[in-house]
Every structure is written in C-alpha cells, then in structure tokens.
C-alpha cells in the first residue's frame, strides 16, 4: 500500500481517540483550592477532573447566579456521530487513494473544528453571562465567561482553558492527513515521471 494511503487512514483513525481521551479542560485555581477545580470536556459529556469537581464548581457558581453545568447538551448527541462519520469518510478516502479527497477531508475537518470552537465560545458566553437576578453576590459589570484558550482572572479564580490529549491526538491526525495529501502529490509526480520515461 502506498505511504500516503497509510497516512490518510492512520490520521482519520486518530479521530476516534476522542472517545478514549477528553478534548479540553477548564480549571479554576484559587488559594483555597491547592488542587484546582476542573471540568474535562469530552465529545459526549462534561466530566469531573477530580471526583466531585462539577458539583463543587456549581456550588460556588450559584453564589453569583450562574447556571449549573449542563448534564446534557444537544452537542453531545451530534458530536459523536460527526466524529465517527468523519473518521469512516477519511478511511474510505484513504482506500480510494485520491489526493484531492484527502485535501477535501482536511478542509471539511478544519471547518468543522472552527465551527466546534465557535459553538464552544457561544456556550461559554451564555454560561458566563446568563445570571440569576436573585444571585447573592452581584459584582457590577462582571461576567464569568471562561476563556476559550489560555488564562483569565475571574473574580478570585484564575481560569485556565487548554486542550487535552484527545484534542492533541485529533490535531495530530489532521496534520497527518494533510501530510498524506503532500506525500500523495509527490508519489503522483514520481509515478508521472516514471510513466513519462
């Protein structure tokens, strides 16, 4: 089998690691929390970083009137299918072995990724801005939206938002499929040259 085909198949398969590893993490650091509170975001759920973290984040957030972290979101119904379909599609394209399909797959994936991040941003915006008017603690002009990426000070907490293993493996997979495209192009040129001789 051609090297490019193997790369395309392996790259697409790496997407499935999202079912084994979490995608993203938001952690909250404060002096009283020597072990930071954290939520791990998966394609199909939001989970504790350490046991009880979601409960404790919700507990603290209720003082400023934030909603509880949802146990279920419509995205959790959609994302797993998208991942499985994209992975199968990538594997299929790999077997077909057409470099244009490789590039197409990469572009679709990139667009979906950007849409996913935008969707994540919208949720964060709503989570940080929709506050219960009866909240015990109100700080004028304060919003509690966590950062999309990187670090942000929110009241007494430092919120840190960073990708986790699942995301890194997905990015690696995408990089490999892009590499598959360039390798395939090289292979095609070589084949054309040989044919030309």
């Amino acid at each position, binding site marked *: 089998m051609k090297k490019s085909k193997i790369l395309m198949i392996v790259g697409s398969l790496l997407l499935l690691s999202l079912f084994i590893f979490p995608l993203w993490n938001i952690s909250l650091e404060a002096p009283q929390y020597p072990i930071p509170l954290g939520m791990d975001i998966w394609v199909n759920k939001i989970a504790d970083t350490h*046991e*009880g973290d979601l*409960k*404790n984040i919700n*507990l603290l957030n209720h*003082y400023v009137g934030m909603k509880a972290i949802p146990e279920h979101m419509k995205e959790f119904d959609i994302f797993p299918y998208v991942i499985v379909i994209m992975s199968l599609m990538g594997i299929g394209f790999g077997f077909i072995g057409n470099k244009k399909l490789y590039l197409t797959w990469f572009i679709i994936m990139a667009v979906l990724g950007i849409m996913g991040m935008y969707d994540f941003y919208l949720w964060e915006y709503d989570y940080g801005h929709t506050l219960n008017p009866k909240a*015990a*603690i109100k700080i004028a002009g304060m919003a509690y939206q966590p950062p999309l990426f990187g670090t942000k000070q929110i009241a007494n907490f430092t919120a840190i938002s960073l990708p986790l293993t699942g995301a890194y493996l997905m990015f690696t997979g995408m990089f490999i499929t892009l590499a598959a495209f360039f390798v395939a192009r090289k292979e095609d040129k070589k084949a054309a040259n040989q044919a030309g001789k």
Partner: protein
Amino acid sequence: MKKNFTFLLALSFLVIAMTGCNKGSKSGALKSGVAEKVYVAPGEHDKFYAFISGGFSGQLAVYGLPSGRLFKVIPVFSVDAEKAYGFNEETKPLLNTSHGFIPWDDAHHPDISQTNGELDGRWIFINGNNTPRIARISLKTFETAEILEIPNSAGNHSSCFVTENTEYVVAGTRFSVPIPQRDMPIKDYKGNFKGALSFISVDPKDGNMSIAFQILMPGFNYDLSHPGRNKSHGWFFFTTYNTEEANSLLEVNASQNDKDYIAAVNWKKAEEYIKAGKFKTMPANFAHNVYSETNHSATSTMEKEVKVLDPAECPGLVYFLPTPKSPHGCDVDPSGEYIVGSGKLAAALTVHSFTKILKAIEDKKFDGNAYGIPILKYDDIVAGVVEQPGLGPLHTEFDDKGNAYTTFFISSEVVKWKLGTWEVLDRKPCFYSVGHLMIPGGNSRKPFGKYLVAMNKITKDRYLPTGPEMCQSAQLYDISGDKMELLLDFPTIGEPHYAAGCPAELLEANSQKFYKLDENKHPYATKSEADTKVVREGNNVHVYMTMIRSHFSPDNIEGIKVGDKVFFHITNLEQDFDVPHGFGMIGAQNSELLIMPGQTETLVYEPKQVGVWPFYCTDFCSALHQEMQGYMRVSAPGSNVPLKWSLDGE
C-alpha cells in the same frame, strides 16, 4: 586622680563595647541552629506524626514533629461537645460499658499496628485505664472505630501493646480484684484476688477485636508490658509490683520486696492450650462497641463469656523473671534479645537476656515458684546492668544504632546508653520529672532514630503562667548525633502520658478527604434536598434535613409541640475536602453537631418552651455562612398546628 578617671572612663567604654558586641552576635538557639531544626515553613509538612495520649483527658492528640504543632484531638474515651462525640445518637453507643454510659476515662498508652514487626499505619490502639477498655482508632479517618470493654480487669494499665503482626493487642490489669467480682472483705486480698492478662485478637481485615483468652495471674499489680519481637516473637513481658500483695498503704507496703517480677508469657503456648481445650469458660458481661464508617453509627453489644487459662495448670505458659524494686517499664530492643526492666525504686537498670531465659527454662533452673509459676534465677538470666544511670528509671526506647534511651523521673533526665556494653553515653535534663518517652518506631523492629519526645509530668515555669493549673509539656530532642540535643518545648493536652510516632509518609496519602455520599448507609440519611421531610411518630419527630453551602433544607419547620422529642438527622451533602457544617439549636440540652461532608449525624432536642426557635450553622463554611440558619416553631402541647416544612417557601 584625673588619670584614674580617664582610665575608668576608658574601661567603661570597653565594657559597653563588649556588651554591644555580644548583643550583635547570635546567641542561644540561633547560634547552634536549633531554631532551624524545628522550623517547618508555612505550608510545609512535618516529617513525623506523633500520637500523644491525653492521660486524664481521655483523648489522643495528633502532633507534627519536629514542629510540635497540634493538628487534632481525637475523642476516644471522653465526650467532646465540639465534635458531638458522646452527644449525638451515633457515637453514644461507643461509650457504653457494663456500668452504663461513661463519659470519661484515663487514656494511657497508644500503640500503632504492626506487620512483620514494623509499623504499618492501619490502626492505633489505646487503653482506657479507669473503666478497663481498649479502643481502636482508624488511621484513615483518625476517628475511634471500636471500643472493647475488658472484663475481670481494673485499672487497665499494662496495656495496650501489639504483637509483631498485630495478632493480639494485649491488656493487663493494674489492680488485682476478686474474680469473679463479689462482696468480700478487703483484708482477705492476699491469695484471693487475681490479676487478669487479656489477649485480644485483631481481625487482619477490618481490625475487629475480640478477647481470645485471659490468663488469671496471682494478685500482684501488673504495671506495663511489651511484646517480644524478632527472636522473642511469641512471648509477652509484663512488669509487676506489689508482689507483697498488700491492700493498703501501698507506697510502703508494696515497696518491701527486694525484687519483684517480670512475668514472661509464652502466648504461642497459650494458643496450644486453648486449642487443646485447657481453658475454662467464665460468665462475664462486657460491652463491645463498633462504629461503622458506612452507617456513620456505632452499635453496642454485651458479650457474655470469656475463656480463661490458669497458669498453675498450664506448665510452660508463664515464668517469673526477678527484677529489682517495683519495675515500671519492660522494654524489648529491636532484636528481641534484651528485655529492659526499669526498677523504679532501684539505683540500676536490669537487662534480661532472652537467650539466657530460654536456656534457664530448658535447664529447669528455677528458684522456687509463686502460686505454681516457676521463678527463674536472677543471675542466670541477666544480660547486664547499667550501673548508676540515674534515679527512678521508667521507660526505655531504642534507636536504629544499638542505643537505648531511658527516662528517669526522680533525677528528671533522659539517659542514652549502649546495648551490650551497658555504658552510659550521654544524659540530658528534662523540665521537669519526665515520665515516658517516644522515638518513632522505638517499640518495633525498625526505629527511626532521628527524634525523641520526652513527656514531662511537671511544667512549673516553662511557659507563661496561667494560674494554678498549668498545661503539661513535652520536649523534643535530636538524637541523630553522638550527643542528644534539646530542640523544643511544646505544650500538650491533658497529661502527655505516652506516645507512638511514625514517619508522615506512612499515613499522609491514606488520610481520607471526605465520606462518599453514595456509600452513606445511615438509616436516616437524606441524599438530596428533594428527599427532605419531617415525620411524626407519636411524640417522636424525625427531621430528615440536609446542609450544603449555604443553607439547611428544610429551614422552616412548624407543628412541633412542647413534650416532643425531635431527632434532627442531618446529612452534609458536600463532597469536597474540608467543608464541614455545624448545627446549633437554641435551648437544646445537648452539644452542637459538626458534620463532615457525606456524613449523617443525629441531635436530639426536646423543646421545653413555646416559641419560634432558631438554629444555625456553627462552622464558618462560606461567604454566606452567617445566612445559613432556620427556624423551628414550637407550639403548646395539644395544639393543632399542622406539621409543615419548607425551604424558600417551597
């Protein structure tokens, strides 16, 4: 004259300059770096745990070494209103005895469980001296897990020490008493009173204790005991005093014999006799109290019989080792060869050799017997004598370099000496009148010879005065060098009677952070606010309440009447480390509750007056702690106010 004046002036300047110099340089503790040796920077952890009994406080306190900082007082034998120990319905059964509920005891000798002769950090045991009991404390939760009453015993003092694999925790009686107890003249003591040595087996899985057997010994006083280890594993040694069997003015009448005994008990032999059915089953009545970590509640069961062995009928079970002058400590070195008897009225320390003891037994070289128990010949069994070490030896522990350290009560000092050569290497004063001492692991095969804690009986001027009653005091010595170095004085709770210590890493990682709500099997647990309710059963009203930052649910309760008995069953719904909530109810003739995350506790409140009575959270839990409160409406007897409960009007 003028010349003289100039000379004097110059001299004065010189003196002032020298004094100034002195002030500028480091002196005392700073000069020798002692302060740095006990300084644990903010946020850093100590290297060792020290569990120091509170003596007459009845409790066990947890300190860090080398800082001497107090971390926790674990309530064991005395009620503790702060923690609702002995006040809430869950812990009351722990303090039940054959004499009923007893709110106090005298807690003496803690000992950490062992495996293969080394500290294993599973449990710590401690004896209740006054109403004889043994407690087992979990070193995961640092809470009392079990208390077993000891029948046929009085003044449970030669207790409680564990064998090499925690096969047994052993409890000997100080007072001999009529066994079974009966109405008889005190003057008939001699020959009629008996002393019971109890061997309590410990279940290796859950630590549950049960009395395997008792040995009914002659009517002496049994003072302290220690297990054989390594080569002497299978034996247990008990010091005796009052072998005169006096029953009055013991300070004189029990100090007449030139030698008393160390009783050497072969407990492997006892097991054989038990197996062979050589025991009698005696009727008895003693409480066995067990606390369940999942039910968060204790139960008390009365046990009705005990197996006893008579040493006169069981040859080879017990031998007496003559030891000078009312020995207190009998301490076994890490190799198990040497048994150090501290004759507390003697001028020398006697050390017996286990090898020689076995040889003397084999050769049957006895010096008569006492009540059928063979007495070995002193000269045949002595390994050596530490001559003129000090006055009033009490207790010896060991380091990992072949040295022994003995406290001397009367001369108020700790003395370091060498095993085998018996020479005194160093001595340091104690302030004042030291009793027991502790080296972490010093009563095991593997001592950690870094620090020594001396526990003193008298404090006097060591701290800022606080009226006639002063705190008692412990002192920390560095024993890592050739000479001991006094590092620190630190105050203690109650009387720091005896201690056990271990490296921090043995316990630190296992210390429980909170109780899982899912695992809470308390019959009155409420696991969500939706399940809260108030149920009337005649005059008993059960309030199923929850607490979470920063409210109770329900927080308004109506329909309670004067004459009711209200049971507040409160569950802390938190699942985070170090977020307890408290509960205080106005007019409750009871303590507060202090409830750990995931735990359920019950407070009984019997309202006496009509009115609307508030309750509140007593542990500063959150920014809105002061808002964590509620009301209970109490109506007149026979009133028809319906039973109602709510949170935020719902």
